């Protein structure tokens, strides 16, 4: 299981190759891309910041949890930091498993937990020159209060 935070673009094929195991019958991946709009505003790019030490640990914990919950062979994930352009890959998750159901479920679990728990923040840069830190969309349920 490996989770990494990168401040530079990485070769996604190389990440995918880590998941190619003889005992795996399939592979499922999720890519999060920088899109050109959010909540009615034209976006020119996103800037990501991470508390790397803890992001790394929490990301690894999530991958281990996925391994405990689903019948998978391997899981790899990465999150980018720095300034990303429209279309850039901000987050990548890959899971290999003997059977497809577990691969899909684990992939979904990992992206949901990354978004909920890993200390990474995004700032939206708008076409009109403004920039704002994105507000949390999942805090109303008290998820951030231990």
């Amino acid at each position, binding site marked *: 299981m490996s989770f990494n935070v990168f401040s530079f673009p990485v070769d996604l094929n190389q990440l995918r190759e880590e998941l190619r195991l003889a005992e795996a019958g399939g592979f499922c991946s999720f890519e*999060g891309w920088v899109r050109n709009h959010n909540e009615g505003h034209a976006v020119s790019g996103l800037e*990501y*910041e*991470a*508390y790397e*030490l*803890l*992001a790394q*640990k*929490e990301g690894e914990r999530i991958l281990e949890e996925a391994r405990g919950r689903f019948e998978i062979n391997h899981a790899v994930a990465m*999150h980018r930091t720095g300034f990303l352009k429209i279309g850039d890959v*901000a*987050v990548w998750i890959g899971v290999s498993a003997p059977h497809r159901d577990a691969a899909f479920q684990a992939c979904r679990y990992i*992206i949901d937990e*990354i*978004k*909920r*728990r*890993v*200390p*990474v*923040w*995004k*700032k939206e840069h708008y076409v009109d020159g403004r920039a704002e*830190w*994105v*507000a*949390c*969309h999942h*805090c109303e349920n*008290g998820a*951030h*209060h*231990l």
Partner: protein
Amino acid sequence: MIRLELEYFAQMKEIAEKSKEVIHTDLKKAEDLYLELKERYNFPFKGSRLRVAVNGDFVPWDYQLKNGDHVVFIPPVTGG
């Protein structure tokens, strides 16, 4: 008095206009420290919206701070 190293990220870094600082305090509870910093810097977050990490791990809000601790208050995360 204990010596603490504080580190700020994202909105909190911009509002505090610094990424790190060393403070000396008599406060012992992480929760009380946040309330003091919220007052000092006018952070917009209620404590209930944040998490706190000490020495690279999440800790509960009633964590008792120790001399030399590295403390990070974690604003709502927005990765992905």
